């Protein structure tokens, strides 16, 4: 049976793409952020995943507001990146795993998560940049399954629903008859707000409490409504829902392999965690 070897949760700010393109990894502004990733790469070299199931939100590349799925799962043989409008370099395509995708879709729909399935899908910076941070040579050694969560247009799925999706996704992955080693990624957040008079809002106390809950109390965030999460972490901080999904794929007890937190990257409090299942 396939095995979830751990989760990587990280921020996905577009400016990271610009910094990678310009080689700014050791620039004083960027270094505290990029320094979080060599240990992730060492961990990946140890756990040797075959597949990454990547939970993220689209920012108006694949989905427009004409059709906005709450949850969507990719089922393509390949996922391409494309121009998002601000000219950061387009990254190489990602291999998919249609058989695993359809297995996950079947299992999730059987568990009453009525998904949108995508046999064609372009992936944006929320998918590509975390991959590039993990594999800077961009020769992706893994197959991928995108899981897209609506964090753009309210009503958003609740944190409680996202956690349950993660739990169902974990069961679906574990029931795949292959022997794949799977890493689940969740990207977005942590606290930030791009829009409105409250632009620039960051909440370090909340972020650190949330990161702690990822280890010790995984359902903690589910007590909040999505508008409460906006109040606590900003209009785009609500992307932490993708972390909640990823966390749901792991058992109650986890080992914290590493964590990094830095303010600011662009307008964002950046968080990074690697967790492994225990028991």
């Amino acid at each position: 049976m396939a095995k979830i070897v751990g989760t990587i949760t990280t921020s996905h700010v577009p400016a990271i793409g610009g910094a990678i393109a310009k080689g700014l990894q050791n620039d004083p502004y960027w270094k505290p952020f990029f320094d979080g990733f060599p240990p992730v790469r060492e961990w990946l070299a140890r756990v040797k995943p075959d597949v990454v199931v990547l939970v993220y939100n689209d920012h108006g590349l694949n989905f427009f507001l004409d059709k906005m799925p709450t949850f969507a799962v990719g089922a393509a043989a390949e996922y391409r990146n494309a121009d998002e409008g601000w000219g950061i370099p387009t990254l190489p395509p990602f291999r998919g795993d249609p058989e695993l995708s359809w297995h996950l879709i079947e299992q999730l729909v059987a568990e009453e998560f009525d998904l949108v399935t995508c046999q064609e899908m372009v992936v944006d910076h929320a998918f590509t940049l975390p991959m590039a941070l993990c594999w800077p040579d961009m020769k992706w050694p893994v197959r991928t399954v995108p899981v897209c969560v609506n964090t753009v247009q309210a009503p958003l799925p609740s944190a409680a629903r996202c956690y349950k999706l993660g739990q169902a996704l974990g069961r679906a992955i574990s029931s795949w008859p292959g022997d794949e080693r799977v890493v689940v990624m969740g990207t977005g957040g942590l606290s930030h707000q791009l829009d409105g008079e409250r632009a620039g809002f960051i909440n370090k106390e909340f972020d650190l409490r949330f990161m702690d809950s990822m280890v010790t109390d995984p359902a903690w965030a589910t007590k909040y409504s999505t508008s409460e999460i906006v109040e606590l972490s900003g209009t785009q901080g609500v992307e932490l829902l993708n972390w909640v999904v990823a966390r749901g794929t792991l058992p109650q007890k986890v080992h914290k392999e590493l964590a990094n937190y830095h303010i600011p990257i662009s307008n964002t409090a950046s968080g990074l965690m690697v967790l492994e299942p225990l028991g």
Partner: protein
Amino acid sequence: MPAATSRQPVPGTTIFDGEQARKGYALNKMCYSFNDAVNRRAFVADEDAYCARYGLNAQQREAIRNRNVLQLIDAGGNAYYLAKFAGIFGLDMQDIGAQQTGMTKDQFKAKLLAAGK
């Protein structure tokens, strides 16, 4: 049938809900088109014609003309789509943040740094 309720409980914040999505549809659709470099160039070449093609209302057209983010949000714009509009002018998120909060860019960046202390 009662109208869908709009809840905006967070000060200084417009949660992008169904009401905003309906109000801003044409504006966001135009901004979505800016994913394509050909469309970005077409906008720059003839802004009036491009806005007319997407059917922007007077409020949206004025907000685009003014490059004013708070006005664009008020006209139904969504941050993720407006970022594509800002990209045409090479503006980054600190430019956008400074404009919305009435700060200089340096003041806005200092505010972000201070949040980490």
